């Protein structure tokens, strides 16, 4: 899977956001905010192809914590971005 190149993370007032798109155009009514972990993941995954397992390996190398919870959170994150057609499988 990969992140569609049309999506660029934007920084507004020190916070990171993604403007969602609809029918090929920016949908002004829908904005996703990214926390620090999401921003880190986004930077790792931009411009590469990846699998969920590969991303999990990256994540557990960089962050500490409950691995099962981490895996669950990651799955939710990837599934959410797939649903919004930001990540293409």
């Amino acid at each position: 899977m990969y992140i569609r190149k049309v999506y660029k993370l934007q920084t507004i007032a020190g916070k990171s956001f993604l403007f969602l798109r609809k029918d090929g155009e920016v949908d002004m009514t829908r904005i996703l905010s990214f926390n620090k972990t999401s921003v880190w993941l986004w930077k790792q995954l931009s411009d590469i192809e990846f699998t969920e397992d590969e991303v999990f390996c990256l994540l557990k190398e960089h962050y500490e914590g409950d691995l099962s919870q981490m895996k669950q959170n990651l799955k939710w994150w990837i599934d959410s971005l797939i649903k919004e057609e930001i990540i293409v499988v």
Partner: protein
Amino acid sequence: MENLYNIAGHIVYIECDNSAVMDTLDGFKVFQIPLVGEADVHIVLEDAEPLPISGTLYNTIVTDVAISRFYYTEKSFYMGIWRQNELRLSMQFEKNSKKCHIQGEISPVLLRFALWVAFNLATIDNMTVAIHASAVIYKKQAFLFLGESGTGKSTHTRLICQRYPEVELLNDDSPIIRVENGECMVYGSPWSGKTACYKPMKFSLGGVARLHQAVVNKISLLPLHNAIGALLPSLPPELYLCSNLQSKVTSILSEMIEQVSVYSLECLPSESAAELSLKTMTRTIRKWNK
């Protein structure tokens, strides 16, 4: 080079052989300046048929009178305006040279819009953007009132000016935001909608409110997410809908949000609404000062 204008601190040269066309641009006259060095923006009005448009379509605006379509390529932006399925006006903007060519129906309405688009494309790199708003000046600061067309922006600012004689209208449709030395400034512009309010002046941004019609008056300070949602629809879609320009627009938006408070104003067209908004917006201390 006699059609030379200083708009928001940018020198704009409109090359046009037909003085009758330039005479239709009422709002531009007070921005005219004497001959100076090189212009920042060079717009050429050509007495020719509209040219075919090419590139990747990124935005379409449909109004009662026309359909405007916006395209980009690696080196240029293009705009076409169609009326009754016929291409009436074409515009090509070269990114590197910032030179713009316009052909076709040079009617005042279409021409003013094309010049506005050209100005925005040419100046966005210099942290400058037009914003759809009615702007008033109070104590050397500019306060912006945003909202969908017909919400009552002009009515609200007129009521403020009536209630407070020391308040003055700066622009009624499209003032220009420019970030200068890190500070958001608001400039008057030659584009002011139906109100002939053309002022070559600038003031620091004091605050922003997005208007909504309501049955009671209420003003609320917006958190970050909502402030973005309040400001973004009033910035030119010709810019932020294009992936290549989006980050430039959000940089300006970011500066605005960091520096001043953004409010939601639910209101009636009444003097008490004018009192509520001006009192609230002017008692807020600027978030940040350089």
